[in-house]
């Protein structure tokens, strides 16, 4: 499998200046809104600790909670399925649909079904799948994956959406008014809701105590997907479990405040028992999660509640766009999750970070994201998964840094060269770090030189 070259992919995004500027500002605006919410709650830090601790308790007792969840869901009249991996998940969903001769499926946004690449799988087998979240629908119609886990089309401008909708749902290509575009998608989607044979949702939380599936949305599409068709399916990653209903208080208070800077999503929906005369299925999906649980350094990433705060605050994500990560999960959380799916394919991603730790400091479940990024870099270097140029440069750096003499010679040479060499020599293709980075002004003298001079002058040396 081809290695994702994040730097190369992001260079395309960076070239579109108006897109880049908007993207950067929009996400930073969400970060600022999040800060206002966090400052308005005196118990904010305590809620973060609770959110983290409840998840850690759940994950360290996950098998019991999964069994409890299954038992309660079954008692509620829900059919529970288990999928080891993406392909088994897709097969199960197909079988459920075929068992009821369902040909059309309306679905709410779900990162898990994206992770499983379910849409193309079902489409190839004659099932019409309609994404009903506006952002996800834009991406579906444009044949592009979601670029952000909360805002799938955040990398697009209104003119891009106008182009996509004109080509697909027949809007006026010249009209990029946002109200017009959103209303057009609403009008176009409503008939699909009304005629759909089946509806599908993901899950933000799954409550073991009651077998309840909880979904936090703003558009009303998840509730419509569940309130209309006779057949309903919820796909749930096994890490979404929480022990009890009362624990929702902690997570619901944190999720939208961190994601969008709003106190709550417009809708927080709890599905426990199927509607009278209808059928509900739950698919519990592993797809690498149980394995991640056994990774001493990395199992904490399973605490993630998918708020996207780490993406919004990340300077690299904001300036490279989610698509440049080439993975379902992008941004800081993606950087630590993706290598568990495929180390080689995603080996460049842990380098898409400044290690400034901003992701860790905003994370509502206190995942040590930047420390995990650093640990992934170590693993990737140990397993020789570094791209060739970076590897060569690091070996040279290793030699230089381990020898004081070589180091001093190199520092003097760099000081001179940064000042006098033309840019093309500093920013040549062999310097993997030079791309998209400016070298800071070199100081007039090194500390060592300054130290030697001053100590000698004062006669304290020798």
């Amino acid at each position, binding site marked *: 499998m081809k290695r994702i070259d994040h730097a190369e992919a992001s260079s395309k995004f960076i070239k579109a200046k108006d897109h880049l500027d908007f993207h950067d500002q929009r996400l930073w605006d969400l970060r600022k809104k999040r800060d206002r919410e966090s400052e308005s709650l005196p118990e904010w830090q305590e809620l973060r600790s609770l959110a983290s*601790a409840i998840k850690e308790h759940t994950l360290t007792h996950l098998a019991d909670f999964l069994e409890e969840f299954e038992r309660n869901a079954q008692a509620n009249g829900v059919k529970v399925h288990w999928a080891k991996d993406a392909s088994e998940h897709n097969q199960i969903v197909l079988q459920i649909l075929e068992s009821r001769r369902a040909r059309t499926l309306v679905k709410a946004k779900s990162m898990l079904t994206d992770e499983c690449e379910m849409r193309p799988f079902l489409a190839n087998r004659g099932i019409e799948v309609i994404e009903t979240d506006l952002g996800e629908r834009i991406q579906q119609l444009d044949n592009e994956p979601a670029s952000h886990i909360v805002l799938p089309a955040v990398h697009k401008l209104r003119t891009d959406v106008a182009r996509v909708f004109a080509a697909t749902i027949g809007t006026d290509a010249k009209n990029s008014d946002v109200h017009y575009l959103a209303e057009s998608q609403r009008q176009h989607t409503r008939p699909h809701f009304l005629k759909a044979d089946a509806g599908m949702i993901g899950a933000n939380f799954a409550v073991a105590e009651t077998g309840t599936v909880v979904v936090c949305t703003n558009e009303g599409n998840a509730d419509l997907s569940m309130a209309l068709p006779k057949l309903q399916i919820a796909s749930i990653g096994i890490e979404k479990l929480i022990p009890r209903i009362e624990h929702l208080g902690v997570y619901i208070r944190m999720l939208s405040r961190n994601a969008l800077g709003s106190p709550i999503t417009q809708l927080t929906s709890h599905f426990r028992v199927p509607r009278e005369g209808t059928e509900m299925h739950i698919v519990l999906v592993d797809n690498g999660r149980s394995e991640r649980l056994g990774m001493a350094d990395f199992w904490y990433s399973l605490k993630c509640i998918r708020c996207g705060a780490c993406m919004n605050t990340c300077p690299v994500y904001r300036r490279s766009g989610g698509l440049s990560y080439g993975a379902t999960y992008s941004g800081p959380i993606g950087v630590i999750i993706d290598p568990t799916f495929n180390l080689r394919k995603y080996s460049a991603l842990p380098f898409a970070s400044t290690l400034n730790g901003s992701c860790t400091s905003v994370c509502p479940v206190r995942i040590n994201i930047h420390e995990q990024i650093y640990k992934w870099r170590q693993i990737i270097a140990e397993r020789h998964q570094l791209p060739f140029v970076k590897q060569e440069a690091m070996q040279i750096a290793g030699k230089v840094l381990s020898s004081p003499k070589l180091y001093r010679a190199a520092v003097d040479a760099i000081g001179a060269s940064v000042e006098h060499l033309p840019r093309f020599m500093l920013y040549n293709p062999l310097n993997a770090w030079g791309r998209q980075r400016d070298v800071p002004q070199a100081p007039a003298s090194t500390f060592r030189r300054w130290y030697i001079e001053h100590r000698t002058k004062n006669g304290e040396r020798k």
Partner: protein
Amino acid sequence: MSSRDEILARVRQNQPEPRPLPPVPMFDAGLSTSINTFKTNLIRMGGKFVAPPADGNLDALIEKLFPDARVICSATPEVKGNLSIDKIGNPQELNEVDVGVVRALFGVAETGSLWLSEAQYKVNALGFLSQHLVALLDPEAIVANMHRAYQHHGFFEAKYAVFMTGPSATADIEGVLIHGAQGIRTMTVIPMSTQ
């Protein structure tokens, strides 16, 4: 071995050392449960707040609020409307509803949210297929925050339960806020004691 047993076995084998489950405080000392706090937070989330009619005639008030509405469907006996929810066979029939009317079981002051379930809606789609929603709320039936809200027994009894906070909304295109995404375009809360 079934996938189920395989997953559970691997989870069991890989689970890190047990960590304790902390108690969750209510964080509600000194918090307001007043209708005014509810109102402020509801409006922030795009909801509307309308004082109850002096003469008690809710049907007349709703007609005045929605002069163009042709179909008004009420799930509460306090409002008559012109389409009876009891006559609905398939939820899809509610697509013609201009204004749905319902009585919420309780509200949450912290967020301006309403708690609703199939017991209130009769047909859940009323809260989503209708173009507009009017909800009655007893000003005494307000809890301070989400921790208090999740203490409610309704979560153990309802098949479906939802916190609705203002109308359906999206900001998926350039962050421009649109009320009326896939569900209701407006939500109007009228504070009225349960009769």
